[in-house]
Structure formats: C-alpha cells, structure tokens
C-alpha cells in the first residue's frame, strides 16, 4: 500500500491512495499529492485593507480578497466555518485562475490581493502562483493566516508575500489543543520566520471570555511579542462574538479589551489596537514617541492620517509599515 506524506503543516498527514488530509483539500491520488482547490475560490470580495486587519499597510485602500474551502485548524469560534470546515464539494466555487485574480484586482483598482477568510496555507499553490504574477503587476500580496505551516514551505513563500496578519490565538499549548485542535509552537516559529524574512507582520489575538482573557495570558503574550519580534509589530486585540461552537459564551466585555490594550502599552508595545469595538481609541494609531494621534479610525474608516512618508508628521519619528 503506497503512502505519501503531506509536508505543508505539522500534521504531516500520511495518506493512502484516495485519502484526504485533515484540511479536506489535499488528496493522495495517482501516487501524488493533489490540491483540490487550485483556481477555485469560494469567497471573492473587495475589503478595506483595515479589515484584515492591517493598519500599517496602504491605508484606506481596497484589498481583493479570495479564499477556498478547507483549513488545517478547527477553531471552535471560527467565523468562516461554513467554508473552512467544509470540503470543496460542499461550497460554491468560482473559476478564477491566478492570472484572472490579478486581472480582476487591477480592474477593481485594488492595490493588493489578500489570501484570507479560511486559511491560505491550505491553498498554498494557488496563493503562490497568484502572488508571483501579482508582483509582476506591482500589487502587494497579503497573507491572512493562523500560521500553522512548516518552515520549508514558508521560506519558499516569503519572497512572494509582502505583509501578513497572523492569528496568535493564545499563548499556551493547552489553548491551541483544546480550542483549535492544533499546536502553538509552529505558529510562534512561523511568526519569527516571516519577520526574519522581510514580511511585514501584524498579529491578532481574539480574546474569548474564560478561555484566554486572563491578565497573565495577555501579559505573557505581549511579552513574547516584544521580546521575540519587537515592539514595533502591531498587535490587534479582537473582541469575540458568539458563533459556531461557542454560542454559549457572552461577547468579550469592553473592559477586558481595555485591559488588554493597557497591558500591551505597559509592556512596551508601540502599536496596540482594539478591534470590533468601533469608536474606541484603540482603533487609532498614536506616535510611540510623542503620543500624538497619527491615524484616526472609526472601525475601518480613516478620518485623519498624519503619517507622511512613513514618519510622524509632528516629530518625524519613523512609523514602521508599508505606507506606499
């Protein structure tokens, strides 16, 4: 009986002929590993780039966003579970090969392509080929991912990815196992790898009541970010809303979001944000040097922007990001 091993993520699914991997979209067929979703996204939208969330990349521009069915994690709170926890036979898929993705992006006047919604790791080949063509047309490639990927495929991909938002869902292995049926260590390694290989990284931590909302967890996470990837990596705290398998929990209290935001600032992170609480000061960017308001946002809307040529308009401190 022939067996092949997928090496895209830590699961290292060993598959006999006709068997599918855990992600539902990679299959052993005719002695080879096949992807079932190349060129066939089930979600295609134009989103504000701030929705990813990416706050330090081409503000107030549209990102042409695509995703296929499948995912290599199984998070209990997934907001995209209708596509991430389904095989491609159960989703409505478009025929959109890589060159057409780029053509549609240009037609829509978007400056970037976002590989998002489910997890682009599982449509790796589609993302990779599209990203190569996108660069030839001066488009940015944005990867919105949970980061559960092995080092080799990630290193191959990094030259084609300009920015990434990585879900740093929690800071304990126990959380990753119980909440996501996954592992923390490969995600931490992936974040470091992306940073070291020139990808602009922003992180998102979804705070879920009773699961990862303790002061200890939040502080540990902030310290890891500061010590490992640096205080200039933006950290977005996102407010949880009940969905999928966690409809029994309440939304995250705004007070908890405030606490997380304050902890991040007290731990020395320069860019901490609060998401899913429109109108909160944490939607906006402040200069880490003089504290002045740089980019005023309400939700995804930008009302003011005082970042000029990548610097604070007032004190000329460099504000890291991809501003043009």
């Amino acid at each position, binding site marked *: 009986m022939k067996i*092949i091993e997928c090496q895209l993520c830590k699961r290292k699914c060993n598959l*006999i002929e006709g*068997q599918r991997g855990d992600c539902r979209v990679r299959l052993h067929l005719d002695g080879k590993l096949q992807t079932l979703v190349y060129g066939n996204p089930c979600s295609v939208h134009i989103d504000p780039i701030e929705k990813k969330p990416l706050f330090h990349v081409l503000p107030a521009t549209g990102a042409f966003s695509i995703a296929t069915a499948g995912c290599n994690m199984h998070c209990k709170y997934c907001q995209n579970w209708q596509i991430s926890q389904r095989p491609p036979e159960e989703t409505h*898929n478009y025929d959109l090969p890589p060159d057409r993705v780029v053509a549609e992006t240009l037609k829509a006047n978007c400056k970037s392509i976002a590989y998002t919604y489910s997890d682009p790791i599982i449509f790796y080949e589609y993302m990779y080929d599209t990203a190569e063509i996108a660069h030839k047309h001066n488009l940015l490639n944005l990867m919105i991912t949970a980061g559960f990927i092995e080092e080799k495929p990630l290193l191959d991909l990094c030259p084609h990815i300009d920015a990434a938002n990585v879900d740093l869902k929690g800071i304990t292995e126990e959380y990753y196992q119980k909440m996501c049926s996954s592992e923390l260590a490969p995600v931490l390694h992936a974040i470091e790898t992306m940073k070291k290989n020139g990808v602009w990284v922003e992180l998102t931590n979804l705070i879920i009541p009773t699961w990862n909302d303790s002061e200890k967890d939040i502080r540990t996470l902030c310290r890891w970010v500061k010590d490992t990837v640096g205080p200039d990596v933006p950290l977005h705290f996102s407010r949880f809303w009940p969905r999928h398998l966690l409809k029994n929990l309440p939304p995250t209290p705004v007070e908890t979001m405030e606490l997380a935001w304050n902890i991040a600032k007290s731990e020395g992170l320069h860019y901490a944000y609060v998401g899913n609480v429109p109108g909160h000061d944490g939607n906006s960017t402040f200069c880490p040097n003089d504290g002045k308001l740089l980019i005023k946002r309400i939700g995804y809307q930008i009302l003011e922007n005082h970042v000029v040529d990548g610097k604070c308009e007032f004190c000329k401190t460099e504000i890291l990001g991809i501003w043009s």
Partner: protein
Amino acid sequence: MAQYMKKENKYFILMLIIAAALLVGIVAENIVSVILPKTVRLNIDVEKVKQKLSQAGIVTREAKHWKKVR
C-alpha cells in the same frame, strides 16, 4: 462428587465458571490491545473518489511539499 451435589449448586458453580472465563477474556483483550500496535484498515474505492470529484466539477493539480513514504 458432582452426582452428590444438589442441582442448584451445580448451576451456581457453572455460572461461576462462565463468569470467571468472561472476566479472564476481558482482561486478556485489554492487555493485548495495550501491547499490540493499533492498526486501522482503510478501504478506499479510488474510482469512486475520482467519480465524486468529477461530479462535483473539481479538478486536481499536483501539490507542492510532499514526499513518498513507501
């Protein structure tokens, strides 16, 4: 000796022997399942898999980052 025992006692001893045998069998099965490796026999009808993919309009393409194990 058995011919001098009451009928009820004979049945009681028989039930005891059956119960003991069951207990030994259960314990032995548990020990074997711990010692021997677990094997899962998968029987996949590959032609059926191909047929279902075709019906769903799914086109396969060789993936990157995999290796043959055996």
